[in-house]
């Protein structure tokens, strides 16, 4: 104890900030903690979590190890009905946790209407809407079918999808091809030009890409993501480098595999013109890696974080297929001309799988080009990433941030830390108009709501009885 009196004083100040001023003015050192209260969980759950802290820590280490070992490779493409497990003709997959038609938000309904038109089940939006409202079709979360979808994330039976295999564990993940920005299905638009583009993607883009990917023998997505982080992407709201790198890997095989030069040129132009093309590969890469970490008893590591525009849901490695749900919040965003926060739909999409995997908002320090979403300075972006280390299980061994001296990104969200520290995950996101049929109105950031994490930790605590 005498060491307190004999050493220079260095204080960690938790609480009243002005105390730090007095310490510094007198020549002492003081580190201010931006403390906030823990999220309120039941005392019973809290005590149980504390009693099993060592067990949880060990389980999380195991879960993180599985995640780190993941080796997602783009193996090929196929039609949803043929390749997605459990896919059926009149089933529509969607982003986020389960939801019924009556609770679906505008853009989700719009995307469903578009998908019904795309499948040819109805000729007009009115008929499609009536069929959907009448309960003619089934709905299921993408996540429950080894898939992920950005924004509304709607996948229907005849849509082509990428097939990503986690070569370390053999599990697969699926995702549709990215349509571009603006008026697109995933943002809830369903006008004839939207459907027309989807048809072109099915009939021209898909066969060309499928042939090229197969000829290439597979494209290593993990290494593209690692390089993209060094080139200014966080592979959620910025995918320019990832898309470029992907195109570079693809083009030789594409040119060889596609006989019609006109088609090859159209495919290259489409990908080149869509900075977000790689999002639909970074997402399933994360999904394939995270799914390998499922089913680890006692682990509070988050394996899915997804929004359907109404609810925000998460799943933990240690709690099986249970969804823990809270309200989806409206993002803080930069809006396209003519739109404002009043037009914005609450947070939507499976794309938060990137944050779940240590990318996106968790890696925003790697993406100085998009700091206008987070306050405008590169320092702000660094601080957001630094904050996320507080709730991460560990640091990524592969994905590293140049501006942080190549420190690994904060990886594996620990729901217990989220609750105990009152810090919720920081998510980059696009913003959809709240009404069906309009499309994208902006992009920005949002903090996850605390409720799903509180429920998840309570849910995990309930499983701890058996130990």
């Amino acid at each position, binding site marked *: 104890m005498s060491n307190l009196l004999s050493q220079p004083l260095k204080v960690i100040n938790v609480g009243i900030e002005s*105390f730090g001023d007095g310490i510094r003015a007198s020549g002492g050192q003081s580190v201010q903690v931006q403390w906030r209260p823990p999220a309120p969980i039941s005392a019973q759950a809290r005590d149980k979590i504390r009693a099993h802290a060592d067990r949880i820590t060990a389980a999380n280490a195991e879960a993180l190890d599985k995640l780190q070992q993941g080796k997602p490779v783009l193996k090929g493409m196929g039609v949803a009905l043929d390749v997605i497990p459990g896919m059926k003709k009149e089933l529509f997959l969607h982003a986020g946790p389960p939801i019924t038609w009556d609770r679906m938000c505008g853009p989700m309904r719009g995307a469903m209407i578009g998908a019904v038109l795309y499948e040819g089940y109805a000729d007009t939006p009115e008929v499609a809407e009536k069929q959907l409202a009448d309960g003619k079709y089934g709905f299921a979360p993408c996540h429950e079918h080894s898939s992920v979808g950005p924004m509304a994330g709607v996948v229907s039976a005849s849509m082509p999808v990428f097939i990503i295999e986690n070569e370390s564990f053999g599990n697969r993940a699926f995702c549709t091809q990215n349509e571009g920005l603006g008026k697109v299905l995933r943002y809830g638009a369903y006008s004839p030009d939207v459907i027309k583009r989807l048809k072109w993607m099915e009939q021209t883009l898909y066969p060309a890409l499928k042939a090229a990917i197969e000829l290439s023998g597979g494209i290593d997505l993990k290494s593209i993501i690692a390089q993209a982080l060094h080139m200014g992407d966080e592979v959620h709201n910025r995918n320019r480098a990832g898309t470029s790198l992907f195109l570079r890997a693809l083009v030789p095989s594409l040119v060889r595999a596609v006989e019609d030069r006109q088609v090859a040129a159209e495919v290259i132009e489409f990908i080149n013109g869509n900075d977000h093309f790689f999002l639909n590969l970074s997402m399933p890469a994360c999904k394939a890696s995270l799914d390998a970490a499922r089913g680890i008893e006692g682990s509070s590591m988050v394996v899915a974080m997804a929004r359907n525009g109404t609810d925000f849901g998460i799943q933990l490695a240690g709690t099986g297929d249970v969804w823990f749900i809270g309200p989806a919040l409206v993002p803080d965003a930069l809006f396209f001309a003519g739109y404002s926060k009043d037009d914005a739909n609450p947070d939507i999409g499976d794309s938060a799988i990137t944050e779940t995997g240590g990318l996106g908002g968790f890696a925003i320090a790697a993406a100085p080009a998009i700091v206008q979403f987070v306050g405008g300075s590169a320092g702000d972006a660094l601080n957001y990433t630094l904050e996320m280390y507080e709730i991460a299980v560990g640091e990524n061994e592969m994905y590293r941030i140049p501006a942080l001296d190549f420190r690994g990104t904060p990886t594996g969200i620990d729901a217990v830390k989220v609750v*105990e520290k009152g810090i919720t995950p920081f998510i980059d996101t696009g913003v959809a108009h709240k009404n069906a049929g309009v499309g994208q109105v902006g992009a920005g950031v949002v903090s996850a709501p605390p409720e799903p994490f509180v429920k998840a930790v309570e849910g995990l605590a309930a499983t701890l009885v058996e130990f």
Partner: protein
Amino acid sequence: MHIVGKIIRGKYFDSVSLMLVARETLGLPGVKDAAAVMATDENKRILKSSGMEWPELAAAGDTDLALGIKADSEAEAVDALEKAEELLVKKKETATDGGAFQPRSLPGALNEHSDANLVLISIAGKYAADEAMQALRAGKHVMLFSDNIPLEDEIALKTYAAENGLLVMGPDCGTAIIGGIPLAFANVVRRGSIGMVAASGTGLQEVSSLIHNLGRGVSHAIGTGGRDIKKEVGGLTFLAALQALKEDPDTRVVALVSKTPAPEVLEKIGAAVRDLGKPVVAVFLGADVETVRASGAIPATTLEEAAHLAVALDQDADVEAARTSLHARATDLAKQAVELAATARQSGKYLRGLFCGGTFSQETVFLLQPLLKDIRSNVSEPLSNPDKSEGHTIVDLGGDEFTAGRPHPMIDYSLRNRRILDEARDPETAAILLDVVLGYGSNMTPGEELAPVIREVCEMDDPPVVVFHVCGTDDDPQARDRVIALLKEAGGVYAPSNASAVMMAGKIIERINREDA
């Protein structure tokens, strides 16, 4: 009257920042009341009892920020609410200014700053014990400013600390000085060779400041929190602090400040004192001198005397000579009191003490007991009417009944300033006794805020006497000499310590009553 309110989800600010925003908002046109608090059940109750309710408030919780405004018109209320939000945003921006990352949690801070050796905790009591235990487990010493921590948590923390060679100052420890660095509410005191252990916050501030004012300095001043000397806690921190000072080569003399410890704790302290190998002065307010002497310490009856005796020992001077010179000064003060009594208020009978330092109000009550009969005070139990004095009344305005949902009177003078004027208007008030506490954490402009009120009192027809003392040093950010000059110029009667202020005020009253009789 119009009330508007707003709930901001998931935004947290420390209590002092919020109170300063509320105070600034209160000065806006038409605003009658302003609240900026975390929406805990307790704070919601306080808001409700002051008539501040709006629809969203009920559903808000611990992690939500509640802003409420009561104003003459709807428009003024809405404007003020907007302004309050702006002020908070500005605070957050200054707080995070400079771009350097501030950790968001204690574990985060411990990760990045493993060389830190003390964790200072001043968050709401219900969270503080958990954070303190995390700090101890990481091998860090703890200063726990927070109060409202259950006794069993205090015992658990201190037991763990004792087993692991760590120090827990507090809970409810308002001040300490470690190696010349002032912690929380502390004064700028020169470094020296007098070590202190104190179970009372303003007691530590008074003794350390007086040591500085007498030309000597402090090695370390360790606060223990007021409950440490209770039987249940057993003086765990007090004893650990004595051991630390024993081993500290910079400490030559030790001064102890406390209310009377429980007998079994005093016995343990006595054993440690006799084992210390360094001279020890003790002021145990309310204890009889012989008990203290039996413990092996040199007894002092006032905070001031403790400082004088410690300084004498530190200078290898004669303790009795120091006592004699203090007595001589007391005689001078008594003469001055006689003069003041001669011109005292005709209708005045009673003494009214309005304190922001808890220890000062306690010392005042103990010192007045031999002089005056029927003293009312909230020092040991609540007053029947805390807002209205009767007879001789000594009020600790830092008591819970005054501070719930409000800034401490050491920071915010508005409550006491109003009360001073109330007392002055009561014709039975003969003398008003005040303490002014300087140092980090306290009000930064005490002279500017208090002098106009003293002047207003002294310019009344046939005014009461206002006696004050200033606890602090010339090196404090507020500068003691400057504050004294301002208050004297306004008409206040200055005394060099709380004890001497009490003696002077007490003598004035005694004299008046004798003349009446």
